[in-house]
Every structure is written in structure tokens, then in C-alpha cells.
């Protein structure tokens, strides 16, 4: 098995293809696994209420609030957000609302 194959191990990897020692050569590749379908309610970002205070960013367990290079938050990463609602609860400006998915 060459190194390129190891990097492309998918969810359907079988025992003949696994890497020696179970080594995972691609840091942070869980990005490819979408946990967004766990969600039953989803956060909606109301951009005009948002003051960019950043209090929502650190409380996200799923690293689902992306930040741009200027340190401003962007819309949610719905591929990974599990809809726990912590961000909506801590927002002091009612800029995040939980809605049915």
C-alpha cells in the first residue's frame, strides 16, 4: 500500500486495507465525517443582530462556528453542527435562534 492510499481511507475501509498500526496519516480528517445529520433543531444566525462579540465561538463543542482571517464569525458549519443550542443560549444579542431543522 502506498502513502497516497493511506490518506484516502474512507468509512468503508476493510481489514485488508487498514494502515499498519492503525496509524491515521491525515490530521483532522474527521472533517470528512458529517455529524450534521444528528441535528433535530438548527441554529439560525441573524447577522444584523450580531455584534461579533465572539462569545458563541468558544462554547461550540463541534468547532462549527468558522472564523475568517479578520477574526469575524461566519455562518454555521452545518456539516458538523449537532444542534445542541449552547450558542443560542449564551448569545447576549439574540443573534442566534433555534429553529426546527
Amino acid at each position: 500500500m502506498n502513502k497516497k492510499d493511506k490518506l484516502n481511507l474512507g468509512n468503508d475501509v476493510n481489514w485488508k486495507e487498514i494502515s499498519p498500526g492503525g496509524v491515521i496519516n491525515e490530521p483532522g480528517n474527521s472533517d470528512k465525517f458529517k455529524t450534521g445529520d444528528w441535528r433535530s433543531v438548527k441554529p439560525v444566525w441573524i447577522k444584523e443582530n450580531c455584534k461579533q462579540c465572539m462569545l458563541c465561538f468558544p462554547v461550540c463543542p463541534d468547532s462549527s462556528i468558522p472564523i475568517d482571517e479578520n477574526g469575524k464569525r461566519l455562518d454555521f458549519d452545518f456539516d458538523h453542527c449537532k444542534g445542541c443550542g449552547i450558542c443560542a443560549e449564551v448569545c447576549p444579542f439574540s443573534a442566534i435562534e433555534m429553529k426546527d431543522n
Partner: protein
Amino acid sequence: MAYNLKESVKKPERLAGGHRMCAGCGAPVVVRAILRALKEDDHAVIGSATGCLEVSTCLYPYTSWKDSFIHSAFENAAATVSGAEAAYNALKRKGKITGDTKFITFGGDGGTYDIGLQSLSGAMERGHDMVYICYDNGAYMNTGIQRSSATPSFADTTTSPAGNVIPGKMQPRKDLTLIMANHNIPYVAQTAPMGNFKDIYAKAEKALYTPGAAFINAFAPCPRGWRYETPLLMDIIKLAVDTCIWPLYEVEDGKLTVNYKPRKKLPVEDFLKAQGRFRHMFKKGNEWTIEQFQKDVDEKWERLLSMEEN
């Protein structure tokens, strides 16, 4: 440099999404806060004791860690990482490695207070330049909410079920932070991700960049095991700190400092009633459990304040 939340969020994310921790879990919030305290150019070698965090962040063939991660057993996470640190020092001495690497171990309360205590104690005593972080959610959540020595008194767990025979766990909580402080290591702290995360960030930074062994005990609520609604994570943490159930303090070279003294100390009921695992304490006939709980918290808080003065 003074802490600034808006500056700290610009650092690259070191824990990717797509891990399989429950929605609303406190542990990844703790992990992200700790890893943000790393300098951008520093590499980290991270080990984890068996627990929710380990099995959910590193499910073959996926990993959520952007730094090196070592899968370890339940009882030897601290030993594994201390060995990696010793190997790094040897390679560095021979000039075979460049750059700075930090060594971090994460463990749940089961892997830290109970099963991994011997390897943790040994690693700290040998003085490896590493940080051990316990995310304390007060039970073996990964296997189905069994009691641990970090479970608070009277909590309902599957191995201390509240009913007619007992009102939940009958033993008091082990105070691991003070046990670690008595190892006389350079830095020990108890923290929680709260408000703008200043407390946990400052403590993580000190722990990571103080040479020698450091230990951090971080409060990490578990919505599944504590039986509360997931959005309430930060409220539960605030209540635990304001009722003095989880005091924030640090011990630097033997000097204890209490970092947060609530302006108005809240009654323990405020913390207890928010969670289903303490529901039975409010039933008729169980009033004594709340009195007992309050008495224990008050005694511990007073003892902590007197230790700060001495």
C-alpha cells in the same frame, strides 16, 4: 500578554468537527479552550486515557486532532505521554529534532481519579515537562453513567441508583486537585470554561509554558449523565462556580490562590435543581441530603479560603 477573546479566536482550530461526542458535550469545549492557549508555531503531542473523548475523537480511519495523537489505555495515559516526552528530550539533545513540542494528556475523571491515578502520580512525581488535563464530568459516562470517585454525593448513577434504599451515591467526592497540589509540582489548577474563557485560557497557558509537570482539573458537564437540556451547558457551569461547588483556584509553587470569589454565594439548591441526577433530593423525606450537601460545600470552601491565607 493580557487575554483577549477576540484575538484568541484568530488562532487556528486544533480540534476538527466531525467527532462523535454527544451534542452539547462539555469535554470538547474544554479541549478547544486548552488547545487555543498553545502558541501557533508549537506542535503538540496529545495522549488520552480511555473515555468519551478518546473513543469519539479518534475513530479509525478518522481523527479530529490536528496535532499528534496517541491512543492509550485507561490506566496509562500519563505514562505514555511522559515516555514520549522523555524520547523527545533525548532526540532534542542529539540534535535530531527541531522546533518546540508540548506534551498534553487528557483524561476523564474515571481515567484520572480512579484507574489512571497511579500513572498520573508517577508522571507528575518524575517531573516530566507535560500537562495533564482532567475533564471532570463526574462519572463513567462513556460506559453508561457508572459512579466514579469524582461523582458528587447523592448523585443518581447506574451503580448508585437513587431509590428507597439509598439516595444516590453515599460517599463524598475525592478532592483530586488538592491531591495533585500535594505532589509539590510547579503548577496545579482547577478551572472551568466560563464567561469569556479567560480563566481556563490563562491557566492552560501557565500550565503549558511553566517548565515541569502541571495538572489542570476542568469542569465538563455531561448533559446525558447529568440529565439537563443541552443548551444549558454554560448556565450549569456558572451555577457550579457561584455555589462554590467547583471553586476556581490555582497552586503555583505551593502558593494557593482562589481566582474567583462569587460576590453572592448561591445556595446549592440552585445547582442541584437544574439537573435530573439530583431530582430525588427534593422529594419529601430527603431534605437532609440537601443540608448535608450544603454543609460539605461550605466546609470545603472555608478550608480553601483558609489555605489561601496561610
